[in-house]
């Protein structure tokens, strides 16, 4: 690992100007659980690392049923699942936060960092997509917003420009009779990267029988985390039954175009896309009907 300069920013403007000055040679540090490994292994190089954990706005975690959830980009994962109200309201987000690395990693790593690392296999991004999260960015040209589904552009790449940082993730308020879930498949039981990850979100009618709205997104089946738009639209108006969810799983299997690599084959990933879509829809429907997420 090459020596690099380390600076702590205490305001968004300070971080932006530090980063803008160095461009590609500067990197943002939150938990560092991806960045430090990448620097050590020579996958990335940096002359300057800017720590943004001291910026109050980026450490903000606030929730109200009326306004939804504001998640600062540097908030570590454990704060999500440690908060009973947030983890009940945004159960799929808590599902993701609980399985990113182990406890040590979760005490440092942030959802914002997981998004900005922009891995196709990121465990949080499918959940962010199904919650239709809005990303608040800050850069030399000022502030802008981007829908999370449009954030990642390629493996390890995203829409952030020179000097631009992710400041906050804005989750819309929770709708009545809605529920969501994230599952991933790994060959072991922890400390692994998703072979396939799936998040589903459902809004049911008052009786809990018919699907009014649906969103499904998958990880590790495409160059970027993948919203399954056609499957999501097909689900609308269907009965929330195991037959529907199995059929949605079959559609998901056909909709994805994964690759074969050290973690799985094309055929296996397609198959898992179906299994996990079905399983997350079942859990999402249960949660929409009032089942609570498992306690941590």
């Amino acid at each position, binding site marked *: *690992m*090459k*020596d690099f300069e380390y600076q702590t920013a205490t305001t968004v403007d300070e971080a932006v100007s530090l980063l803008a000055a160095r461009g590609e040679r500067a990197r943002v540090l939150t938990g560092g659980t991806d960045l430090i490994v990448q620097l050590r*292994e020579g996958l990335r190089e940096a002359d300057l690392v800017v720590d943004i954990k001291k910026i109050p706005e980026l450490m903000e975690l606030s929730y109200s049923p009326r306004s939804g959830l504001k998640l600062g980009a540097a908030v570590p994962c454990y704060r999500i699942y440690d908060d009973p109200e947030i983890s009940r309201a945004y159960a799929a987000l808590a599902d993701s936060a609980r399985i990113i690395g182990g406890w040590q990693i979760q005490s440092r790593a942030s959802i914002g960092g997981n998004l900005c690392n922009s891995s196709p296999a990121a465990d949080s991004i499918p959940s962010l997509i199904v919650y239709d999260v809005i990303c608040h960015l800050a850069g030399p040209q000022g502030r802008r917003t981007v829908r999370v589904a449009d954030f990642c552009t390629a493996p390890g790449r995203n829409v952030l420009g020179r000097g631009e940082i992710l400041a906050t993730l804005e989750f819309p308020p929770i709708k009545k009779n809605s529920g969501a879930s994230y599952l991933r*498949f790994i*060959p*072991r*039981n*922890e*400390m*692994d*990267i998703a*072979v396939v990850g799936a998040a589903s979100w459902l809004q049911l009618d008052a009786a809990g029988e018919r699907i009014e709205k649906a969103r499904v997104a998958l990880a590790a089946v495409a160059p970027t985390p993948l919203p399954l738009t056609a499957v999501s639209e097909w689900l609308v108006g269907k009965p929330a039954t195991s037959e529907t969810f199995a059929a949605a799983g079959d559609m998901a299997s056909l909709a994805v175009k994964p690759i074969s*690599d*050290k*973690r*799985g*084959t094309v*055929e*296996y990933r397609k*198959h*898992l896309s179906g*299994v996990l879509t079905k399983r997350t829809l079942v859990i999402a429907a249960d949660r929409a009907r009032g089942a609570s997420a498992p306690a941590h």
Partner: protein
Amino acid sequence: MASSTGDNKKYKVIGTRPIRHDGADKVTGRAIYGSDVRLNGAVHGKILRSPHAHAQIKSIDTSAAEKLPGVCAVATGADFPDLKDKIANLGEGAVNLAHLSANVLAHRKVLYKGHAVAAVAATNPHVAEEALKLIKVEYEPLESVTWVLDAMRAGAPLLHDNVVTNSMGKKADKPSNVPTHIHFEMGKVDEAFAKADIVIEREYKTASVHQGYIEPHVATALWNEDGHLTLWTSTQGSFTARQQTAELLQIPISRVTVVPCEIGGGFGGKIAVYLEHVAAMLSRKCGRPVKMTMNRDEVFEGTGPTPGSFVRVKLGATKTGQLVAGEAYLAYDAGAFPGGMIGPGCMCVFSCYEIPNARVDGYDVLANKPKTQAYRAPGATQAAFACESMMDELAEKLGIDPIELRLRNAAKEGTRRVDGPTYPRVGFIETLQAAKASEHWKSPLKGPHRGRGIASGYWFNIGLKSSAAGNVNPDGTVSLIEGSTDIGGTRTSVAMQLAETLGIAAEEVMPRVADTDGVGYTDVTGGSRVTFATGLAAYEVGLDIRRQMTERAALVFKCDPAAVECVDGMYKANGKSLTFRELAGKLGQTGGPVVGRAAVDPEGPSNGFGTHIVDVEVDPETAKVTILRYTVIQDAGRAIHPSYVEGQMQGGAVQGIGWALNEEYVFDDQGRMQNPNYLDYRMPTALDVPMIETIIVEVPNPAHPYGVRGVGETPIVAPPAAIAAAIYKATGVRARELPISPPRLWAAMAAKKP
């Protein structure tokens, strides 16, 4: 839980569970591992490694690296003596020094991705890494081959132009990727197959796997101005490390002192040297101590995994399940240099059974992978996966219970193994009986997608040389000096044997692993030998001390030494008695210190058998296998410290579970490993295995005064076959390729569905 079937000798120390002597240092973090060695003025060495799986080295230009500020020394293969083919015996296996030298720093060719090419020492590791980038190596890439059967094909890329096939002493005339062909045969094999009621033949494949020790290789060298070289290193054999280093540098062994540090795991992978003589050369060049530590990817790509294999086995039996004939074809990759694990593979493939007519052909095969090294029962697991899986299939076809089929054919005293030796008293049948009687086997397995499997395993205990000395202290304790580096709690199990012999408490013996100047020659910690052979040395140290103490007691009692009786550490004569401690306090007045010594080289290695039972559940949709319950039953001869015996049984089983389910070297089409890290090289974590249950069977080894059999290696042998059998019960799929990873098992389950 222990079931004793042997003698009923009463011991005071043996069989108890004292706190290990090195326990406090280990749990407080004060034990000195290789990475804790910090010498004044030390600089840091790093190694440049080949990006190609196979290439000719056209040139190496180190000039820019040498000029980088902070760089103290640069070395390449050209700095080392050009060694001729000379075989050095490393205890558990021999090595050709020319190959060892070329493996540790490439000479004219790189033979695998990760093959070391050059080394740099610099004032800090980051500068050393920067300097590596400045070394210009011109390669001419060659076609590579990684799968063993591909490497054997005519027209396969040839790794060495001077290696020819040696077939049981007969040498071929043209170069080949097959350095060795082994052939064992006994009885009338073809006739026996022709007469058999049932004959089955199957093929099995296994992937390359790594020992996965947590501590990476680390070594610090100081080449002093007086020409003496001291090495602090993490090794399974300090004398072996001394010998290899001296040979590679062509200096007398008396010029080298190896100080063994605590080891964070070895499992066979820390016998060959990788860093020691490179650090030494860099130290000689720059006149400062040089410390070298591998990164994890270097450990995977630059040290020794155990072979990937292809095994074909044919078994013939009568209707009643009597094995009448066996035939095995084994091809194991050796990696980039000859001398893989094919020998023990051939010896072990039929080692659990009495098969009167058998034939085994084994092939050591070169491939563009790191040179393979020993890994816990090296070569046996691949062979057992084949033979034991077939025993399960045979049991099913004949409608015989799998334990019963094994009992009908089990190797016992007098059984001749296909490679020649005849077993003395062994405890295989006892492990099968204990399995049959176990609560695990007797309790029904309920629920869908679940299955129970059973398999057995075998491994040798080699004897080899050990030395030890015991110094009696005036307070009645004994300082025990031994040379076996401790990777499995052996300090304590060896000390306990001395304590038992002297009739004192385990805590009254203080064991210390000395450096190569501080103790007599001792072979590697390997081959499940330390508790057996170094334990034997400790026993003989005890006898020597007892004899001298008896003489001292005679002086005190003013009688003939022959009149002194020694019982349970009490010396008695003429109605008078002295405890060991009281007598130790009188040594100053009776002639001075008492030092006991022993050097042993026991003949007649022993044999360890085990039987494993496993319950699995397979997710019918994802094919993920969950281990629900696991029991290891093993003959320990005599369990000196039962907790450590259980620990070995559990640890071996867990490594076998990893091998069975997920561990593998994944290569791309250019022969480059895709997963040189613990994220994607998937060893089991604590959440992936249940508590491994253990049943120690004790059939004392007649060749050891306390009946010890080595236990360290046998437990890795059975798991893949046991798990494959359980998966078959759960899914109907016979898995014949390791690892039985979810994508592979799912594909097999999907293919089976109508």
